[in-house]
């Protein structure tokens, strides 16, 4: 078998079959998860953190767990009404990705001394994020593919993509590696959502207005959530990155 293959020579159908497959996912995660149990190099040493920083990190990670659980429950639920087999298979890789994210974040919480993560997550949950999760799962329960892909793979994933990348720049070495691994997965999820919706909006432009209403409803919930998250990380004022940039870029490409 050839050592390499030019991806740009594939036909569009071959490309989509390739990137939505388990085989592709398998070859991809092998590259960055090998020898990194629970998402980081086991040799990495924990740094000293004062109580305030540690507490802020725990609150942040608890809320990341809520986001990842929402994505896990939504992506698994979406398999049942995905429009084609390739999307079902892609979503199953996303389900495993989201499950892994949840697991590595829970593991990190236990490293930080959290004994009962389920209780801790409940106690530290951000209300806007819980409301977002509720809405997302309503879209899934009503088998509304466009709304679910938009809410999950465009809105939630692109905001997580930005927040995790930003957080990774300022995080302790262990959390940093965990977040960097998650960001790589988010690229696939985000790209799937944007490309799927982009194709649909061309074929059914009337969907645009409905999704625009959903966007306006959910924007504030997610932006509030992540603004608060950055506060917990001590990244406020001038230091705070432009959270909305990636998200706004994605929705602008989709015509919103």
């Amino acid at each position, binding site marked *: 078998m*050839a*050592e*390499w*293959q*030019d*991806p*740009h020579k*594939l036909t*569009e159908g071959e*490309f*989509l079959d*390739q*990137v*939505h497959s388990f*085989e*592709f996912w*398998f*070859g*991809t995660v*092998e*590259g*960055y998860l090998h020898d990194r149990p629970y998402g980081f190099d086991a040799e990495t040493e924990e740094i000293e953190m004062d109580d305030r920083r540690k507490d802020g990190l725990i609150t942040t990670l608890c809320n990341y767990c809520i986001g990842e659980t929402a994505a896990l429950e939504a992506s698994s639920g979406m398999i049942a009404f995905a429009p084609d087999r390739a999307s079902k298979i892609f979503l199953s890789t996303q389900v495993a990705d989201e499950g892994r994210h949840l697991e590595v974040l829970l593991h990190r919480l236990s490293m930080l001394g959290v004994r009962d993560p389920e209780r801790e997550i409940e106690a530290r949950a951000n209300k806007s994020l819980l409301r977002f999760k509720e809405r997302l799962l309503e879209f899934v329960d009503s088998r509304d593919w466009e709304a679910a892909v938009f809410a999950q793979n465009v809105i939630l994933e692109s905001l997580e993509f930005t927040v995790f990348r930003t957080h990774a720049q300022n995080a302790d070495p262990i959390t940093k590696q965990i977040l960097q691994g998650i960001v*790589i997965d988010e*690229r*696939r999820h*985000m*790209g*799937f959502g*944007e*490309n799927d*919706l*982009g*194709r649909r*909006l*061309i074929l059914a432009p009337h969907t645009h207005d409905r999704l625009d209403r959903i966007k306006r409803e959910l924007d504030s919930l997610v932006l509030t959530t992540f603004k608060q998250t950055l506060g917990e990380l001590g990244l406020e004022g001038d230091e705070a990155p432009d959270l909305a940039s990636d998200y706004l*870029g*994605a929705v602008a*490409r989709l015509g919103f």
Partner: protein
Amino acid sequence: MNDTLINQPAGEDRPRQMYVLEETGFKEVPKKFRRFYRKWGGPSDTLAPNEVLCPVCKIVIRSLQELRVGDKVYCMPCMSRLIVQEEGGRLVARVNY
């Protein structure tokens, strides 16, 4: 990123420059596709004529040949299909849904 040139440019209707791609340390796609992508170094990162930035996931897409307007490329890390266009005198990729 400087890949090895296979032939040199010669005038306006010159044939495209061809490149030999080496591994870039990028590991976020299956092995056989890895040399076609690399991480972006931020706004100060100068792209080679065979490279274009994916607007969706900010990964540099690489080709075996010099890219020109209208070329179709794929971003495997985020699964986007892209068309090369010119904007402000430089090549950019636009998502083709």
